[in-house]
């Protein structure tokens, strides 16, 4: 099954100051949010002041981009992130994901492991709770109010020392 082409996306691209070869910083908004929010514009102001390349954009069906909101899926919005990486940044990127954008940045990093060189989450909403539990176990843990701690303990126990260090530094 072929998916229809994505709608035209609205974006703002600030090019790097001459000589700045640092990765392009790409802001990924949250659900039903857009690129005019204070986090996106503050990040762009920082990029302009420091000479970094920066992209902010609207997902299909959101903000100034074309498309109907009701038609969008998470996979569509991931593809919109990939379009920004492939067609606008055209080089290494650091993704900054807010809320649902934090989930999309992980999907994008999985799809472009060579190009996505860094991830920054702002109150990210990824699905950390999915790993290693059956649905019955998740429900039991949730009703006991223990899911977050139990998941964390479970993950930490399953990790190598190096992985543990990396996660703890990232928290």
């Amino acid at each position: 099954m072929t998916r229809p082409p994505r709608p035209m996306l609205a974006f703002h691209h600030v090019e790097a100051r001459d000589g700045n070869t640092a990765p392009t910083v790409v802001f990924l908004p949250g659900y039903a949010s857009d690129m005019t929010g204070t986090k996106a514009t503050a990040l762009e102001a920082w990029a302009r002041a420091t000479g970094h390349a920066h992209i902010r954009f609207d997902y299909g069906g959101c903000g100034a981009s074309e498309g109907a909101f009701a038609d969008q899926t998470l996979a569509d919005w991931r593809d919109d992130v990939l379009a920004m990486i492939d067609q606008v940044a055209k080089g290494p990127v650091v993704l900054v994901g807010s809320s649902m954008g934090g989930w999309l940045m992980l999907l994008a990093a999985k799809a472009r492991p060579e190009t996505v060189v860094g991830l920054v989450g702002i109150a990210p909403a990824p699905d950390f709770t999915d790993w290693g539990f059956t649905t019955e176990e998740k429900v039991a843990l949730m009703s006991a109010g223990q899911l977050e701690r139990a998941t964390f303990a479970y993950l930490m126990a399953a990790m190598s020392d190096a992985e543990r260090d990396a996660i703890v530094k990232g928290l």
Partner: protein
Amino acid sequence: MRLRAATAAAHARVDARFGAYDLTDPDDYARFLIQHARAVGAAEAYLMRAQPTVAWRARMPLIAADLAALGHGVPAAAMLDLPSAPNIADGVVYVLEGSRLGGQLLSRQVGAGLPHAYLGATHLPGEWRDLRQQFDARDAADAAWLAQAKAGAEACFALF
């Protein structure tokens, strides 16, 4: 519908909370919408990835339009930290789609001239009946469904 009975206490708490807003007052109404935007935004963002077994229709663009007309932006969404599992997601759909009924009642209280795209977004003809029948069918087909949907519904009620 067994899910309705199983979540009645959480439901009553939410109804009591939102009875306290004066929807004829633009500032109070905006506070009401901002609180709903946080909750609905979190729940809908969860549903985008959780793949419930039943259909749902997003209302965040409607809240955003109402808030914009009142001079407000969309607030940062709350978090719905639930596992992605279809039965749990069904409970979230029950709360969100069911809230169109309460919204319809509240929309009559909104002051004249104030935007009400969100509260006025009622069910399509037959939509809620079909949804209830689908929930009952899922409950009958899967012994684990009720407990999982209840967990999702209660987490979603708690957002509001």
